[in-house]
Structures are given as C-alpha cells and as structure tokens.
C-alpha cells in the first residue's frame, strides 16, 4: 500500500462525513424531503463508523503534521459517531412537525461531527483550532434552530458570543506558545518546554488555552452559559452538546496533556485540580434547586466533568484509561437522559417539556420510558448495576492511586450532594399523576428509531454496569497502543 492510500484510509471517517455533508446539501437542492435527508445522514454516519474498522489496520499513523490517527482517536471517534447517530435519530422524530426548514439541521450536525473527529485526531495547534471551530460554529445554528421559540434563540446567541470569546482566548494562548517556542506541534512544544525556552510565556499560553477549553467543557468558573444553553436548545441539540462536543474537547485535552505535559513545578496541574474541585462542588450545589430537567442535567454535566478532570490531574496510563471509560459511560447515560426528554417533547410543539412536573407519574403511563430515565439517573448518580458506577469507580481509583485525596474527597462529597437531585427526578416519575397539564411521548415511541435507541442505551448502561470487562478491554486496547 502506498502512502497516499494509507493516508486516505486513515482519514476515511472524516472524508466520509464530508461526502455525506455534500450529499445532504445536494438532495436539499434537488428537493426538500426530511426523511431522505435524515436517512442519508444516518447512512453516512454508519459508513464512517464502519470505516473505523479499516482505520484500525493502519494505526498508528501521522497524517500530515496536522493529524495523528491512533487507537486513541479511533476509540473517541467511535464514541463521537455513535453519539451523533443517536442525536440524528432523536432529531428525526423531534423535527417532524417543525413548521420550518428541517433538512439543514443534518448538515449542521454532520459538520459538527466532522469537527469533533478532526479535534480528536489533532496533534497540531492549527488542526486543534480548525476542529474546535468546526465543532462549535454549527452548534450556534443548531442551538438556535427552533428560533421562533425565544429561549432557543437566546440560547444560541449566548452560546455564540461566549464561545467566540473563548476562541479568542484560545488563539491568544496559541500565539503566545508560538512566540515562545516557534512551533505549533504538541510534541515539539513539550520539547521546547523541557528545554525551558521562554517558560513564562509558555505557561501563560497553556493557561489561556486551558481557560478556553474549560469554557467548552463548562467547567467552573467558566460554566455560566451551560444551564441556559442546555435549557434553550432543542432536545436533540442539548444531547449533542452534552456528549459530542464534550467528548471531543476532553479527548483533546487529555491528549494535549499526555503529549505535552506541563513542565513546571506543578502549579498548572494544581490549577486544574482546583477547577475540578470547584466544578464538582458548585455544579452539584447549583443543581439542587433546579426545577427544569434540562438545566439540572446541565449542572450535573459540570459536576461530572469535574470528576473526570481528576484523571487529567493524575495522568498516567490509568488516567487515560479512566478518561476513556468515564466518557463512554457518561455519553451513554447522558444520551439516554436527553433522549427521554426529547421523546417526551417530540414531536416539536413549542418549548421542550423541561419542567419536572411534566414527568410526574410518567412511570404509570409509560413504564419503560420511565424505567429508562430511572436507569440513567441512577447511572449519573453512580449506583452499582449501572455503567455510571464503573465510571465513578475509575475516577475514585485514579484519585486514590495518585494520592489526590482532596479530589477524592470532592468526588465523595459531590456524589453525596448529587444524589439528592437525581433521586428527586427519579421519584417524580413514580408519584401519582396530578391533574396538571402534562406532556407525553407519542404512544408508539418504542417503535421509533429514537425509542429503540434509548432502549438500547439503557440496556448497554445496565450491561456495562454488570459486566464492564468488554468495555475495559476495548479502552485498554486503545490506550496501550495509542499515544
């Protein structure tokens, strides 16, 4: 096989996504048809997912100075593609009744997924920036997609302005790094850092990049946009935002820190540790009084990324493994939770069913749907028999291994606080039905693709909670050969 061909194989998922984007745009130009656009998207995403098997034959491989394709990027690429797939199935049912143009949504979603894939494989500042912007910019449109609804438009604008500010930070940080070291490749930056070239500027640059990434990950104190955007965005978009964008950025962060470990006396890691601790505690505390499930999930995602940041502070092989396991379980759980919210709000009829009282007594009307949400809440709370427990187990294990007792304490306290609101959501599902107005999933939700998807997700969450060995083996394989 010649170089060109291997490079093409290595980039196949990204290329397939790009081709799909063109195909969807093409069909829209010929004639608007919602079902066709959705089908092409799903086929494209599946093809990209399958092509990952081919990519495994050529890893690890550096494609141009911009990308590195290794098992690590394949693993997170797979998570991103599965999550995008889930979001597009949800979106199809959700957008069915949108009194507007529906097809462009899939173009935006595919662009964003492509950006996520690029970001995961980045080993160069340029690809980092391009990936991150390609991931974020379509999201502005997606968040504001139901723009006739005021809060959706507001959320979109808010996200755009703040995200733009974060990007500015990122660029400034990169510029400082380049000025100090003269290179934009992660690994060379690390060399420059160990040589001690312009170390103050280097640190300032890395610090600013951390700020920008922390914004994307909605870590405290850069979390202020999260609840509003989660609440305002249409259900499938919230799901996408909470999973795909978080996974991609976190994967990048973990890679950046493993390739270019901060060569200083550790204050940067301490800073990240403080951010992690603050996220765990503040995220959970702010979630306590929420009466909107989407806001609540937003705050809970802040806390979860705080837990996960422990792995970055700890570093090492177990750290990377934790990132993989935790993100996989977190994505499955979050998709499930937002999936149920979306199904209850589908098809589109104004603002989503976010208020907790919409879910009162859901179990007695839609037992399986409520059971799915119960499983997801338990998984977010980290109760055994769910995948979330395995994730929390890893986070605690990595903390204990590295002796980060204050972060371990933060996880324990955070989980204790978190239980309160997860249980609150859970019990509401089982209370007696009130006479209040309520929203409900359509009666045949279980036969729709979105419904099948959430049922599969809950099966996966329980399966990996009881028998996580396959998942661990998969992630292990990705970490061992990865970089």
């Amino acid at each position, binding site marked *: 096989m010649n170089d060109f061909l291997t490079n093409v194989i290595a980039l196949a998922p990204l290329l397939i996504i790009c081709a799909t984007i063109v195909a969807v745009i093409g069909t829209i130009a010929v004639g608007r048809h919602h079902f066709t656009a959705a089908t092409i998207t799903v086929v494209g995403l599946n093809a990209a997912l399958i092509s990952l098997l081919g990519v495994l034959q050529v890893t690890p491989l550096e494609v141009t100075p911009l990308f590195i394709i290794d098992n690590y990027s394949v693993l997170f690429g797979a998570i991103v593609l599965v999550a995008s797939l889930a979001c597009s199935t949800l979106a199809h049912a959700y957008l069915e009744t949108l009194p507007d143009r529906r097809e462009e949504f899939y173009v935006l979603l595919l662009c964003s997924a492509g950006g996520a894939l690029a970001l995961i494989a980045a080993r160069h500042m340029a690809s980092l920036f391009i990936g991150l912007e390609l991931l974020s910019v379509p999201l502005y449109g997606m968040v504001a997609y139901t723009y006739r609804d005021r809060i959706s438009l507001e959320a979109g604008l808010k996200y755009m302005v703040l995200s733009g500010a974060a990007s500015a930070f990122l660029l400034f940080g990169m510029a400082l790094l380049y000025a100090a070291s003269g290179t934009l490749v992660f690994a060379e930056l690390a060399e420059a850092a160990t040589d001690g070239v312009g170390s103050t500027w280097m640190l300032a640059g890395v610090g600013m990049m951390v700020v920008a990434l922390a914004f994307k990950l909605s870590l405290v104190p850069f979390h202020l946009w999260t609840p509003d955007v989660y609440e305002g965005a249409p259900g499938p978009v919230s799901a996408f935002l909470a999973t795909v964008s978080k996974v991609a950025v976190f994967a990048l962060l973990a890679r950046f820190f493993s390739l270019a470990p901060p060569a200083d006396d550790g204050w940067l890691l301490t800073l990240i540790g403080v951010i992690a601790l603050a996220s765990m505690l503040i995220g959970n505390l702010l979630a306590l009084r929420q009466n909107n499930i989407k806001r609540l999930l937003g705050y809970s995602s802040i806390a979860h990324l705080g837990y996960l940041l422990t792995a970055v502070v700890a570093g090492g092989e177990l750290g990377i493994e934790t990132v993989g396991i935790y993100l996989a379980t977190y994505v499955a759980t979050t998709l499930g939770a937002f999936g149920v919210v979306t199904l209850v709000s589908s098809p589109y009829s104004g603002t989503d069913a976010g208020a907790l009282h919409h879910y009162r007594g859901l179990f007695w009307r839609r037992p399986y749907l409520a059971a799915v949400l119960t499983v997801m809440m338990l998984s977010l709370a980290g*109760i*055994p028999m769910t995948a979330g*427990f395995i994730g929390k187990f890893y986070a605690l294990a990595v903390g204990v291994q590295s002796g980060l007792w204050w972060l371990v304490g933060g996880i324990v306290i955070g989980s*204790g606080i978190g239980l309160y609101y997860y249980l609150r959501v859970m019990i509401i599902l089982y209370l007696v039905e009130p006479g209040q107005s309520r929203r409900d999933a359509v009666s045949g939700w279980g036969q729709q693709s979105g419904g099948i998807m959430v049922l599969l997700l809950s099966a996966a969450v329980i399966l990996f909670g009881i028998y*996580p060995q396959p998942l661990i083996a998969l992630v292990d394989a990705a970490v061992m050969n990865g970089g």
Partner: protein
Amino acid sequence: MILCWLLFIPFIGGLLCWQLESRHAPSQVPRWIALATMGIVLVLSLWLWLTGDYSLPGAVGDSPSWTREFELPWIDRFGISFHLALDGLSLIMITLTGFLGALAVICSWQEITNRIGFFHLNLLWIIGGVIGVFLAVDLFLFFFFWEMMLVPMYFLIALWGHSGSKGNTRISAAVKFFIYTQASGLLMLVSILGLVFTHYGQTGTFTFDYMVLRETPLDGPLAYVLMLGFFIAFAVKLPVVPLHGWLPDAHAQAPTAGSVDLAGILLKTAAYGMLRFAIPLFPEASAQFAPVAMALGLFGIYYGAVLAYAQTDVKRLIACSSISHMGFVLIGIYSGSVLALQGVIAQMVAHAFSAAGLFIISGQIYERIDTRNMREMGGLFGRMGALPGFALVFVMASLGMPGTGNFIGEFLILFGAYQAFPWVVVIASFGLVLAAVYSLVLMHRVYWGTPAAETSLGGLDFREYSMMLLLLVLTLLVGLYPQSVLDVSQTAMTEVNHWFAAPVSASPTP
C-alpha cells in the same frame, strides 16, 4: 452453584412479580410469586443449614473455612471476581433474611393495595441485595450489593411509606436514608481502593479478594484511616449514635414490610460487615479503635433508650430502641472475645425477631385505628383479641427478659466483654434498666389506661395470628435453646476472634 441460586432467585422472582402484574390488573398473583420465591430461599438456606457441617473444629486462621464457595472471573482488569462463599455466619444471616423476607411479604398482604407487582419487585430485590452482601467475599462485589440494595429500599419508603408530620414526608425520609448510606458507602469504596492499591504497590497484582487482602501488611496510620472508612460506612447502617439521623424517620415512614426488613436485616448487614470485613482486614487498627467504638456503643445504648422514651410515635419508639440494642452489638463486636461475639449473633437473631414482631404489631394496629400516635391509643388491651398478648411477649423480649433470645444475646455480650472491659460492662448493664423503662412505657401507653371506646377493633385473622405465633415460638426457641444457632456460628466467630488482635485471650465457649 447453590449459592448462585440463593442469590438470583429473589431477583428473578421480583422481575416475575412486576411483569405478571402489569398484565392481570389487580390480582394476588405477585404476592403468591413473592411468597413462593421467599419460600424457596428459606428452604434452600434451611437445607444448607441441615446438611452442611459448620462446626469444623480447629479450622481457624490460615486455611479458609468456607463450607461452600463459588468463583467466576468478572472484571479481570482489576482482578475482581464474582466470588461467593458461605460459612456459619453468612448462613445464619441468610436464613434470617429468607425468613424475614417471607414475613415481609405476608405482613403486607393487606397493607399494600396499589402497584402490588412493583412493590414486590422492590421487596425481593432488597432481599436479593442483602443475600449478596452476606455471600460476597470479593470486596468489589460486596460493595456492589451494599449499594445496590439501597435503591429498592428507597422506592419502598418513598412510594409506599406513610406520610409523617408536615415537612417530614416519606420522600424526605427516603432521601435521607439514601444519602446517609450512599455517601458513607463511598467512603468505604475509597478505603477499599486504598487497600487494593496498597496491595498492588506491594505485590504488583490487582485483587479485590477478601482472602488475599486480609494478608496485606499495613502500617499503623494507613490501616487506621482505611479502617475508619469501613467503620463509618457500617456505623451509619448499624446505626452508631452520631450517624443515626436517618433511622427514626426511615422506620417511621416506611411501610411495615420496609420496617421489618430495615430493622431485621439491613441493620444486621452492618454488624456482619464489621465482623466479616472491618475487623479481619484491619485487626490492629480495630483493636486500637475498640475503646472508641465501645464508648460510642455505650453512648448509643443510653441515647437510644432516652430517645425511645420521648417518642410518641410507636414505630419511632421501636426504631430508637433498635439504636439502643445495636449499642450492645457494637460493644460485643469490639470486645473481641468469642463469648461476646457469639452473644452478638444471638442478639442479632433475637432482635430481628422481636423488632419484626413489634413492627408488624404496630402495622396491624395502624390498619385498625389508622394512627401511630401513642397519645391517641390507650386501653387497647381487650379490644384487639390476641394482639396485645403477643405485644406483651415481644416487649418483654425487647427488654431482655430471661427466656427470650434477647436475654441470651445481652447476657453473653456482657459476660464475654467483662473480662477485658469490666467498666464498660458495668455501665452498659445500667442501660438495661432504661430498656425496661421505655418498654413498659410502650406497653402502658398503648395497651393500658382508659380505652377511647369499648367497641372491639377486630381480632387477628389466621394470617396475622400465625405470623405472630411463629415469631413468638422462634423468640422463645432462641431464648431457651440458643445452642442451635451458636453451634453454626462457632467456627466463624472463633475465626474473627483469631483475627482480632485485641488483648483478650480466647474465653471458654458457651
């Protein structure tokens, strides 16, 4: 393999209850399935009791003394295995679980009228989780079941509980219960991980196996901190006094079946955990900690008794009396002599019977007069058929009257601990006086005094009568012939004593 069946039958039975109910609307089917499930568990455990040999003399220390064992690899990455094992201690607890589980099903026969299938799903899953706790000898597996059983208990209290006073609803009681136990459980998980990584640092292999980790040498302060993680988790569940806040609420708000399970079994998982894990894993640290634990136990005896005296809610009174009784258990466990440990077993079994009896009785009173407030009772003797008579026996048992199992338990604990800790025993003995006070107050306020009316409230039907009779016979059986239980636990307790490096020489066995 039989251990697996013991573990999985309740889970399967629970799912069947749920699934069969949703199709045949209001039916008794789930009840019968649940009863059959518990019956099978009980029969299996009795069969194990009768056929197994649990009095292996001399099998102490290095060689494992499991009567039955089952092991499957589970999560290889961390050396976690699905490892179940049974010895005398676990067998007693499992038999108790099977019996009280069946009792819980029977006593909710008329109390629970809505969502019967889902109720029994939760009830049976609690039982399944508890059996898992009693069987697991892999620390990860143990933790898994330890946390897992909280969820169905939470549902049981939150959905079928009684509403208490204003601002003190069943949901807040359930949440309190869940948060107390889950957060303390996480501390235990951290301790487990600390132990595992210490072992990993020494040997380079990951394992969560109890038998292996027991051999891990630990230096003083580390062992102490890790031991505290375990102790706090168990102390919340037992409960030990500063951590008991959840218990009165959870008991008062829970349905009868929930109270029976809570008092009868769930509290015992904590004592079991101390005997099985906290002491053998950290013997030196535990010995160091023993005076503190005993002081907490003493405080609990008095505090629980005073708290019980002040209650006006029958179920809260019984719940607080449990705190007092568990104080004795704590003293017995940390005194470390074989005699006291045997007393702990007798006390746990006897307390399970007497507390279950009292909770079922308060449930039956509640069904008849719709209140648990003792101020609104009085003069019930003679208006309820045989019920007050049974109540008298269980109250006497609870205050430790000779002839009942509770007497044997308290006597053995105090007797066994006397050699090493005479002052603790002296102070604890005075606690028994307070037990008499609150027990008689309970009797007096509820059954004597001027009756509110002369009309009969209806006697016991066959179901209620046979439950009471069975409990009464068992209470007396443990009281008059405790050897039947003590024989089974002898080896296990000798082993605990062997691990416990307390300055107590092995005392003669009862």
